């Protein structure tokens, strides 16, 4: 930590203007959400331009690479389905390993998108507007990746219809008292509602692309999905109400989804799983890991597409603070779990926790602690939050750390539980690894397709937070009486 601080401090004289008063004023003034006084037309041009310009070479190469990785992942899944779950490193006590780790990992990633789109909307955090579109897309793609694993981990995938409320041949219905069935409802509802919310937000921007479209196919496709949107206030007033409602219902939804995921573990009697701290701990961890993924995607995207005026330092700063906050909550949960393992007086529980920190999987545990608790501590420093390389490195650490967290929770608990005679360690096979890598490929592939064909920044929402979007803006500025004086620079 000290090394990174030292290198960063050395840059201050070069980049920062001197003078205490100027610095204080700079910190006290609320930074503009869109910097350099960009006009509405500039926003339209910059964001639509990404979609309208021909695909660059790097995009084709990235799509090819991520698509190939995803394709190989699907081959692994085909191999696993045709052969059996034994091709993973599963053994008798360890029936859940990378599959469920990956499931929880991906579901968690999605939560930041919903937090940005719903919770930050309800709390009127206007800075969310420039990142919510991409974050919601990330949510949907992450849930797609997550949904693969519960489907394939059952082994006999042709029995997947047992998950639906359809009676089986013995006329027995699914067990609605089981958290695994709650999970089916929670995750499928989460996916559906996220998709509806995302699409509702997209409609005005699809209309922009429709109105700008030059070729027939684009005109047809964007025209179809824009639904004939005309931006009339008689449409907007219903639109705003629906957007508010979707935000209002997505907020408890996102909290419920990871709560239900944590119930998969917490309602069992396995030591290390059977704890009441799981729901809040899982939700905080999900938001923590999700924000790290948002930054992982947005930092390169903003550099590549020159979006610095819309995704400003303030956005990165805010997200770093949320990572610091939720990372600290997660760190507290790690400590509290350990404390309760001792204080609860259950020898099995305590034994699991001591084994986590010192046993065969200790390096997983300490990787988790380093990545999730120690790495975010860099974000206490404003200077380090302003250094894009530090931010990116910490986010990559958190991405890895959150995967390790789920592995530690799942595998350490079941590999060495009550009977020492039944203990076995889990070792991943190449199929385990490549199936997971395949979902990373799928996630990136879908995200690349998204930035190619859809506006990655919610144009209509960003325009709505510009100062001139306020109908009373003109009254207290020097621009004169609106509508009477010369045209604003917007139309220039």
């Amino acid at each position, binding site marked *: 930590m000290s090394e990174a601080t030292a290198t960063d401090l050395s840059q201050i004289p070069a980049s920062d203007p001197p003078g205490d008063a100027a610095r204080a004023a700079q910190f006290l003034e609320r930074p503009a959400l869109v910097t350099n006084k960009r006009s*509405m037309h500039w926003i339209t041009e910059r964001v639509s331009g990404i979609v309208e310009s021909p695909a660059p070479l790097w995009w084709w190469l990235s799509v090819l690479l991520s698509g190939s990785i995803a394709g190989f992942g699907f081959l692994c899944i085909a191999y696993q389905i045709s052969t059996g779950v034994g091709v993973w490193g599963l053994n008798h006590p360890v029936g859940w390993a990378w599959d469920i780790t990956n499931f929880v990992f991906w579901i968690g990633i999605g939560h930041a998108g919903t937090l940005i789109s719903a919770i930050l909307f309800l709390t009127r955090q206007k800075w969310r507007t420039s990142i919510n579109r991409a974050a919601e897309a990330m949510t949907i793609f992450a849930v797609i990746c997550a949904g693969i694993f519960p489907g394939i981990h059952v082994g006999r995938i042709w029995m997947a219809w047992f998950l639906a409320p359809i009676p089986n041949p013995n006329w027995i219905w699914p*067990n609605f*008292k089981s958290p695994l069935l709650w999970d089916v409802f929670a995750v499928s509802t989460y996916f559906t509602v996220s998709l*509806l919310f995302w699409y509702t937000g997209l409609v005005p921007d699809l209309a922009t692309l429709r109105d700008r479209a030059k070729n027939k196919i684009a005109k047809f496709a964007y025209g179809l999905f824009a*639904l004939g949107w*005309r931006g009339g206030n008689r449409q907007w*007033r219903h639109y705003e109400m629906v957007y508010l409602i979707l935000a209002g219902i997505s907020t408890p939804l996102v909290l419920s989804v990871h709560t239900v995921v944590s119930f998969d573990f917490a309602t069992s009697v396995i030591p290390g799983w059977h704890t009441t701290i799981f729901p809040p701990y899982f939700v905080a961890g999900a938001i923590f890991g999700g924000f790290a993924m948002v930054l992982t995607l947005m930092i390169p995207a903003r550099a590549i597409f020159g979006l610095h005026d819309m995704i400003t330092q303030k956005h990165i700063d805010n997200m770093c603070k949320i990572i610091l906050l939720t990372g600290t909550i997660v760190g507290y949960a790690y400590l509290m779990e350990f404390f309760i393992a001792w204080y609860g007086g259950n020898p099995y529980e305590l034994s699991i926790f001591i084994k986590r920190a010192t046993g065969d999987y200790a390096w997983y545990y300490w990787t988790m602690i380093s990545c999730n608790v120690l790495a975010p501590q860099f974000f206490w420093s404003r200077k380090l939050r302003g250094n894009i390389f530090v931010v990116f490195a910490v986010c990559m650490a958190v991405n890895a750390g959150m995967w390790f967290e789920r592995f530690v929770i799942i595998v350490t608990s079941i590999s060495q539980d009550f009977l020492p005679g039944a203990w076995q360690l889990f070792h991943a096979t190449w199929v385990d690894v490549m199936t997971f890598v395949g979902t990373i490929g799928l996630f990136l592939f879908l995200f690349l397709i998204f930035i190619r064909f859809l506006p990655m920044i919610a144009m*209509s929402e960003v325009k709505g937070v510009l100062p001139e979007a306020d109908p009373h*803006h003109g009254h207290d500025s020097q621009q004169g009486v609106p509508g009477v004086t010369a045209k604003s620079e917007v139309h220039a």
Partner: protein
Amino acid sequence: MSAQSKKKLYGVIAEYDNAAALYHAAEKIRDAGYTRWDVHSPFPIHGMDEAMGLGRSPIGYIVFCGGTAGLLTALGLQWFTAIFDYPLIVHGKPTNLIGTIPAFFPVMFELTILFSAFTAVFSLMLFTALPRWNHPLLGHQQFKKFSDDGFFAVIEARDPKFSLAEAEEILAAVGGKNISEVYDE
């Protein structure tokens, strides 16, 4: 645009400089007593509902009904399958409604959300008369700017108070520019 003269008049459109100008124009058009008119902007303008004299959207009440339907669907589904049709004794848990209902809450909650979301989106389409493949305004070249940075007010010909001269006059009186007629195809 010459061919449009033979077509049916849809309304009169005027362009405004910015959100504030459109806001004040809306207040004037409202006060003039028009009912079939609208303002078009790239984003929802804060306070425009009052400026146009529109009330609160009723969609919230509809969504409440949709959510309630979801809640009852989930309760009914779980009661029917787990209590009425084939009571399954798992973990020694009770099989009556009172004893089991806590285990039903998660699915009841999720279906409430799911039904609410669908109700909200379908209500939006119903109330905004979407999806719609075409519209007179969408064929108007100048109007295309609404989704970029254009602010427009449109008074429709089917407004009972409508007359071409008066509509053009009021749109111009409140700062409207590039006033033109929109024709239906």
